[in-house]
């Protein structure tokens, strides 16, 4: 395994308590990963930042966008940059749970004895790309639940631990809904972030066209190895959260619930169910990662505001009135932030 010289901060590998230098080194490493991914995935800085943020926060990321916007490219590039094992699962309606978790096969040894041996599925990788996850049946989707939350897979009564770091990055197409199975709320809640991929601008589109259709295609360099990635993930959880920041996170989460004190009138009118306590955990975790990217050892309220939309987006269940009135979750989250801040 090779590592990039400029992105492997040695303080991170030490077992000593982290200090200011470790924070700075981790921040530099994160920015290097971001910069490297952005050289391949053009014009999607926000998308790249949130996916990297999800990866280093140790969560799963759901990417929603139209086909051809670079979702799969992003995941593949990220796997290259951080030097982790990656697998890709194309979800289809006939995909079965065993196809992703793995199955036991009958093996015959040299002496002719038959034994059942577990053959791991594509879930056994550090970075799993679940492409078009909403095309699989709910049964198959549910097979991901344990892996996403517990980082383990149970097959035929045997529990198999997934190797860390483990991150599921799922994509779904929001315009081709024919023959799809929308993800259940329980599964949606297990995604740390839901990222919306927007269309590129004219300049970005031109650059994409030129750079990807020539003789030479951009290739991302590996700037971080797996142990460093694990160190940074641990450091993220050590970023300081002051009481007033925790209070703000709790208030933001509470304000997404209809009828709660401090929730905007629009939330009461349009939201059926607000974000869960897991959402507040996700908010703080993503906020810590955001602070680390910024090179800070503490979380500010601005970090919470920056990650509030991808954290709450898939956790707020809107009512029928919102559908009729064309109200989006992002608009409601904006109201929540304005009200609380």
């Amino acid at each position, binding site marked *: 395994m090779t590592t990039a010289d400029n992105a492997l901060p040695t303080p991170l590998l030490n077992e000593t*308590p*982290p*200090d*200011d230098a470790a*924070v700075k080194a981790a921040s530099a490493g994160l920015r290097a990963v971001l910069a490297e991914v952005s050289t391949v995935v053009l014009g999607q800085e926000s998308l790249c930042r949130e996916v990297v943020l999800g990866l280093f926060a140790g969560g799963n990321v759901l990417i929603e966008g139209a086909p051809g916007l670079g979702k799969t490219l992003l995941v593949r590039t990220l796997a290259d940059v951080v030097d982790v094992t990656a697998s890709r699962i194309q979800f289809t309606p006939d995909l079965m749970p065993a196809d992703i978790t793995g199955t036991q096969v009958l093996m015959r040894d040299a002496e002719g004895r038959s034994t059942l041996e577990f053959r791991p599925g594509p879930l056994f990788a550090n970075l799993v790309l679940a492409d078009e996850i909403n095309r699989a049946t709910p049964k198959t989707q549910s097979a991901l639940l344990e892996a996403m939350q517990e980082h383990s897979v149970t097959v035929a009564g045997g529990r198999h631990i997934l190797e860390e770091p483990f991150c599921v990055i799922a994509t779904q197409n929001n315009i081709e*809904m*024919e*023959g*799809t199975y*929308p993800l259940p709320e329980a599964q949606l809640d297990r995604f740390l972030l839901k990222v919306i991929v927007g269309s590129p601008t004219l300049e970005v589109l031109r650059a994409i066209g030129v750079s990807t259709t020539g003789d030479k295609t951009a290739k991302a360099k590996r700037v971080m190895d797996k142990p460093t990635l694990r160190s940074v993930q641990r450091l993220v959880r*050590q*970023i*300081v959260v*002051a*009481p*007033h*920041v925790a209070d703000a996170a709790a208030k933001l989460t509470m304000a997404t619930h209809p009828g709660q004190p401090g929730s905007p009138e629009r939330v009461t009118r349009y939201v059926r169910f607000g974000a869960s306590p897991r959402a507040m955990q996700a908010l703080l975790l993503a906020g810590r990662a955001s*602070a680390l990217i*910024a090179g*800070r*050892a*503490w*979380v*500010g*309220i*601005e*970090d919470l505001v920056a990650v509030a939309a991808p954290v709450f987006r898939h956790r707020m269940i809107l*009512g*029928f009135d919102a*559908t009729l009135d064309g109200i989006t979750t992002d608009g409601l989250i904006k109201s929540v932030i304005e009200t609380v801040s």
Partner: protein
Amino acid sequence: MNVTTALARWSRASNRRRALEVATRGIPWLAAAGAATWAALDYGGTVAGGITGGGAFVALVVGGVLSMRRVWRVPASMAKAVDHEQGTADLLQSALAIETRGPSADEPLETVVVAQARARVPKLEANAVAPIRLRLSGVGAAAAVAAAAVTLLVAATEHGSQQAIAAPVAPHDEVTIVDEQMLKELQAAAEAIANDLRASPEARAEAKKAAEALKRAAEATTAGSAMAEMSKASRALDAAARKMAADRMPSAEGMAAMSLPQLAEELARATAESDAERLASLAREAMRRASMSPEEAAALGAALEKAAAAQAQKQKDAAAQSGQDGPKGENGQQLTKEQQEEMMRRLQKLGAAGERMKAGDNVDAEQALRALQKLMRDQPKGGSPADQRQQQAEDARRRMAQMQAGQRAMMNGASPSDARAQAMRAGSMGQQMAGQQGDQRGQGMQPGQGQGSQPGNGQTPGQGQGTPGNGQMPGQGQTPGNGQMPGNGQAGQMGNGQTPGSGQVQSGNPPSQQIGAGQPRPDQIGVISGHGSAGTSGMSSHTPHAAGTPSAFSAEQVSAPAAVTPEGAVRAIAELSAGEHVPTGFERVRDHYEAIAESAIRRDDIPLTRRELIQRYFTVLRNHETEAPQ
């Protein structure tokens, strides 16, 4: 440098600067409060000044406290403000929290945060506390201008007041009585009442008090003492007038204690004096006695005949004694020949009433007494001696009030001539008012005239073509009324007026008309004839108390062709109007529609994403339905 210490120092500095700013902004308001207090002291006295000054002080203190609360800084809020203004991303707030509780061993990065904050403090210090900004707001400037304006106004007014105080005041107490001639006339009038032996002792005593007070007023040396005596005289005259008014009407106890000859004699005297009100009271008592037994009626009738004859003889003797001057009335007034003949006719009618009573015909006797009262009431008012005495007392009261008004005006600085003119104006106005009241009283005393099939209810008698009034005084109509006195009707039947009906009402004088169409219930009070208390406005006698309720309402009926098979809301309205509507259970309707929608989802070419929308629609309906009672 310790973050907590630095923040505390910055907070104190900020609070000092903000306090200076608030105090500066309060200066115009302080000036306005001072000016307002000065003005209140100058115009309203100490109490008003104290209230204004106290209120202004409280308002200033409260305003200052509220302003300071908005900008008051403690270390936590100072950290928040500095973080916000200098873009340190909550560094100071986090460091303050960590320093306050001490770094945790489990959180190694807390030390890093505190160290970074302490390193940033010297750089932040320069701009941590906002500089002093002494700015005058628009409202404050307006307050300053208002304070200046009020100060100038008060100063100018004080200057004028001092000039006014310095001007000499002309004495105006040289004359003590505004109109000595009127005072003498009033004294004479009071003495006349006091010496009138026909007045009650109480009335005469009050009149005597008034005369003595007026005498003292004439001898007073100052206008003030004269005014005080006039007030006493006025009160005594009022009391005398009230006593005389009360004396006119015999009390029920007094009448009950009279023997039959005394009652007859009183009736004869009231007839001779043409005192209709007194005659009415005595006649009620006489009829009550006559209705007790035939013997009592016969005795009373005989006494009445005798008393009438004796009174007539007395009048004749008086006429003979007076010689060529002719007879005089009870008050010594010279009677004309016509008046003398009229008095004799009244006494004859009284004798005739006694004769009928003696014969046992009480109804005829009662009608004769009513006719006698009517005859007396039709005479011009003020003709009776009692009326004249009453009028004399009322005149004295009115002139006394006029005199007091003039005296008061003179004491307030008017010249004696002006005061007299003012008293004259007040007197003329009082006379006018008294005249109006007199007219109204006369109108009220007049019996009402009306047409109605229900009896009236009034203190004065009703007179109608239908059923007469039901009042304290007898009614007059085609059928008698049901009152304290019996009605005097042409049909001679006692009516109780309980028969409902409709009729046209004319009542009171000035006449008015009230159309009362309808069918009153039998227990309703009937149409009023001559309703109204004596002396009050004639308008009150116009009020019909039973205009009645219309028996039927007429309305235009519109018919429109109905739809052959109305549906939906139209059908519901049609069924409701016919009283046949049975509400359809919403649940059944929803289930029906949901089944149709589900089948359409499967059958028709509806996109999958829209199918979910339709299903959610019915899910929403189901939720609402469970909340609402069916």
